[in-house]
């Protein structure tokens, strides 16, 4: 898979959906788990699908990976029509589910070999590919032990190795770091970035805001089966409130507020006991201007801090609920 085969990866879309829906029939009547989702995912990026448990993340993912037939809508995944060509989609995408899916009674190596054989590789090719993946995911030490003895991090790396055995163009990861310790989580993020650097597109679901923020190029927030927001992590954060510059001032803060409110680049200013909170679109360019203004007006500046709204704020604004509580 040379880079020549994927010219201007960013201009291609790897997933395109129109009105993708899934209705489950339950004893209490039909439940619309995914209520018409339009997605457009650029090739070669890490795409984050963010939402609380039960929002429809996994259902969407299961539809896109051919595990669950959609009730309605259209989707093109890795260049193939999801409904008409599920077999071709399977050849081109990899999927690592939340539960992983390795058998505790089998060694890691035989899991990878078996997976490779299912994609049609010969026994020799499958063994060679397994050796390659085991080395690249640093599983040499445990590859010939049964997976029931693996640590959480080792098991996740094995799951990734299985999901990548056929060199998919697109890899789906369902809650990839849930239950991992911070070190394994950081390690997994590195692996995911490495895959992107090698040209693999990644679609991941998460309910960790930090993960979405740190790892993803593009984010879409889903809640109760509907998309509620989309953009890059910083676009989403800017969309809600801009940056907050907190200024500690000497004397009456009201003077500073009156001065700052007149500036066109300041959206809103609020006064505290001895500080002023200033909401601006771009904190990094606004800060020097604020400093000059206060200096020019003879207002003493004691402290300054710049903070950005978190994705948690975005989620709260879009859905009226906090994500962390939902995820607990």
């Amino acid at each position: 898979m040379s880079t020549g085969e994927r010219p201007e990866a960013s201009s291609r879309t790897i997933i395109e959906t129109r009105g993708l829906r899934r209705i489950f029939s339950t004893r209490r009547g039909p439940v619309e788990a995914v209520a018409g989702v339009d997605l457009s995912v650029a090739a070669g990026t890490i795409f984050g699908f963010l939402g609380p448990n039960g929002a429809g993340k996994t259902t969407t993912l299961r539809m896109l990976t051919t595990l669950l037939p959609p009730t309605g809508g259209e989707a093109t995944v890795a260049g193939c029509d999801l409904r008409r060509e599920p077999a071709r989609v399977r050849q081109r995408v990899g999927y690592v589910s939340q539960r992983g899916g390795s058998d505790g009674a089998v060694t890691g190596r035989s899991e990878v070999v078996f997976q490779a054989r299912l994609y049609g590789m010969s026994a020799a090719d499958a063994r060679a590919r397994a050796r390659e993946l085991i080395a690249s995911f640093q599983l040499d030490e445990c590859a010939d032990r049964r997976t029931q003895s693996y640590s959480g991090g080792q098991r996740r790396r094995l799951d990734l190795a299985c999901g990548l055995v056929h060199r998919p163009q697109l890899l789906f990861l369902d809650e990839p770091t849930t239950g991992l310790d911070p070190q394994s989580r950081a390690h997994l993020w590195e692996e995911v970035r490495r895959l992107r650097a090698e040209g693999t597109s990644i679609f991941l679901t998460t309910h960790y805001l930090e993960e979405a923020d740190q790892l993803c190029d593009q984010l879409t927030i889903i809640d109760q089966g509907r998309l509620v927001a989309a953009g890059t992590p910083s676009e989403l954060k800017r969309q809600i409130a801009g940056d907050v510059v907190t200024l500690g001032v000497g004397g009456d803060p009201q003077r500073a507020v009156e001065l700052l409110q007149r500036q066109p680049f300041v959206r809103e200013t609020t006064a505290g006991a001895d500080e002023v909170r200033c909401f601006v679109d771009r904190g990094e360019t606004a800060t020097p201007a604020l400093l000059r203004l206060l200096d020019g007006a003879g207002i003493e500046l004691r402290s300054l801090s710049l903070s950005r709204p978190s994705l948690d704020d975005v989620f709260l604004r879009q859905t009226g609920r906090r994500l962390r509580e939902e995820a607990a």
Partner: protein
Amino acid sequence: MKTLRDTALVFQRYFGIFVSNPAWVVIGAVQPLLYLLLFAPLLKSIAATPGFPHGGAYNVFVPGLLIQLGLFGSTGVGFGLIADLRAGVIERLRVTPVSRLALLLGRALRDIVTLELQSLILIAVAIPFGLRINAAGLLIMLALVALIGLTMGSIAYALALWLGDENSYAPLIFTASLPLLLLSGVLLPLSLAPTWLRDIAAVNPLSYAVTAARAIFLGHLGNRSVVEGVAIFAVLTAVSMLLAVRRFSRAIA
């Protein structure tokens, strides 16, 4: 072709798991052996009772044990499927282009191969006690055990997919198989039974299998009961496998 290749791969994997845990092989063979060693001697004293079939205690009892092995050996297969579903193994395999049918057939093949191995162990151990069987009889007997195993296994898989958890699967499958066993004449021949019991047993397909198995061990291979027993289970196998395949492809598209 692809289905065959995939079935072989799935079979290899599950058979590998089975052999890599010798405890399962031993447990599978020990139960019928215990019956053979601890129960069959009791039959010796009643073998002379009027109504007891001809052929001696072991030639009457071992055929029944083989049928029992076919019945109980296959009722447990649903546990493995439920565990795999829960661990996400099946889901992981479904995202690959593997033939869906192969996922079921590979497992069923593993079940049948283990069943046949256990049957051979049982027959081999019983021969020193006076069991007699010829090569043709052995083949027909193994085929009959395989058909029973496939029938019960298919029902077990369909039930496991339908119920989805061990806590409802276990009581249901064991409660359902016990009357099947008791009404089959496995432990004691139904010829000793009162008429009403024999009448109920007449609708139990397993009782035909047991009668067929006893005829096979007496060397009456062309006997009508052998044809009946094998035919009944050939039909049941076809029907139950169809059911399991449909259930499987519905649950696991």
